């Protein structure tokens, strides 16, 4: 397992698209360092012959008929949008 000190909170926050203040960055660096140090105990466990669990009670191949049904109107779907116009979401520009 990697060393706990390797977590770089500032870098991970960029990956997560999450702005942090300088105070938050240094506080989380310390707090998450403690959590990762605590979690080092997982290293003790022999998992060499264990399959990973994805779900506690596995359920496979859930299908449904591909049929049209009721759904939200455009007005309903837009009702919580922070910015909208002409029945559309307004997004921040993503291309130059």
């Amino acid at each position, binding site marked *: 397992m990697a060393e706990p000190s390797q*977590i770089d909170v500032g870098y991970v926050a960029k990956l997560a698209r*999450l702005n*942090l203040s300088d105070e938050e960055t240094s506080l989380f660096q310390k707090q*998450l360092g403690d959590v990762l140090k605590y979690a080092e105990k*997982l290293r003790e466990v022999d998992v060499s012959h264990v399959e990973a669990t994805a*779900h506690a009670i596995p359920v496979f191949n859930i299908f449904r008929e591909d049929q049209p049904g009721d759904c939200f109107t455009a007005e309903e779907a837009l009702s919580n949008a922070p910015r909208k116009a002409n029945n559309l979401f307004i997004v921040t520009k*993503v291309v130059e």
Partner: protein
Amino acid sequence: MSPADLPGLNIADLQALLRRREVSPRDVLEALRARIEEIDPKIDAYLSLDFEAALKEAEKVDVNLPLGGVPIAIKDIINVAGQPCTCGSKILANYRAMYDATVIRKLRAAGAIPFGKTNMDEFAMGSSTENSSVKPTRNPWDLSRVPGGSSGGSAAAVAADAAFGALGTDTGGSIRQPAAVSGVVGVKPTYGRVSRFGVTAFASSLDQVGPLAKTVRDAGLIMGAIAGHDPLDSTSLNEPVPNYPASLNGDLAAGRVRVAAATGLRGVRLGLPKEYMIEGIDSQVKSAIDAAVQHFISLGAEVIDLTLPHTEYGIAVYYFLATAEASANLARFDGVRYGYRAENPRDILDHYGRTRGDGFGPEVKRRIILGTYVLSSGYYDAYYLRAQKVRELIRQDFATAFEKVDAIVSPTSPVPAFKLGERTADPLQMYLADIFTVPGNLAGICGISLPCGFAKIDPPEDGFAVANSVQLPIGLQLLGKALDEARIFQIARAYEQSTDWHKAKPSL
């Protein structure tokens, strides 16, 4: 009965009055509204109320339905059409639900009336309800203490007779732990027993909706209404749902052993895991559990010592898996389709970064960072995949144990309710509050917490504000194997009906 006495009733007794037409659903709602207006300023259990909508439903409800005319409080992470659904977060402060979650649709079909949304830790992340972006909720037994969390609003409301029953969600203990420290009954159903459709996702492989109630029978009534297969949740299990309320009347012989509620537990085998009596457990909690075990023996149960060897890894596994899933689930909060959006973004990265940085509170940010880290390139195998493998070992521990016993007995929380602010600075200490509840979520099994005693806390020497010593509820956890809710209900009911702990009420 005077209207002021109605909120003190449990659901079963309330229904008897409703069905004899001694009170109307409108009377019940008005009495509950008066109680909430009186008590909620002290405990802050609710985030929003809509009695106008509830009274309209009360006019046409059939009181002979399983929950006909019974108001049920709803944790603010479950969508109720037309009502706010803030998840306790600033990022959803102005959100209104467009549709009913499946559990709400089912509650309405059973005649229950949603009327208000309860406070919670933001996105269900926390064990004290202090992570709500709006306000902390206070424990009705001692207003200087937390009600547990994350379903702390639901637990406090039920404990203070400001709700007859409530829904919560439990990802690592968020129903059972607040139920325990607030002195009510709380149930975490088997993963897949109850639909998650319309419930804002925190950790999708762990989340379950369940009831909080004043008695085991009331919890069974609500469970009976909300359980069952839902085509809209592909993880929901297509398994028959037993008639929980009937089984709690002693009418139904469920499973291998017949348990006549309140008359005995002969033939029932209970397991006592040695790993659950750890250092750091409060001495009064330990005494209460020891006494409960003796009580089970006196009811005829056989108590067997057993081992769940991977218990100590539960919290570490949980915090890797739950945060990984949360970091993916919370990616949807991008300030485009709903929720808070930062003003005048410079470009798209500034839009995302400030929307999420301003919209989420500290605990949610910490968990998104940890979850993103354990899933990131180079760390996935060491953290996430290893945690999934240890999860499998924890699941196998329980499978082995349930070959020998019908249910596992433990404390729900290692400590009674702690003081507001006591653990906020140290996230790891807060996480350890869930040490006995988290393994049940990882294994996908069912569990219940019910009152089993009180811890006496002496007033501080200089505590002129506190006249007498306070009593803090202690919770007993019963864990059952997957889909075996009926059995843990019956065992819990037998304990409850032969003790008086559930009858105690906080003086507010």
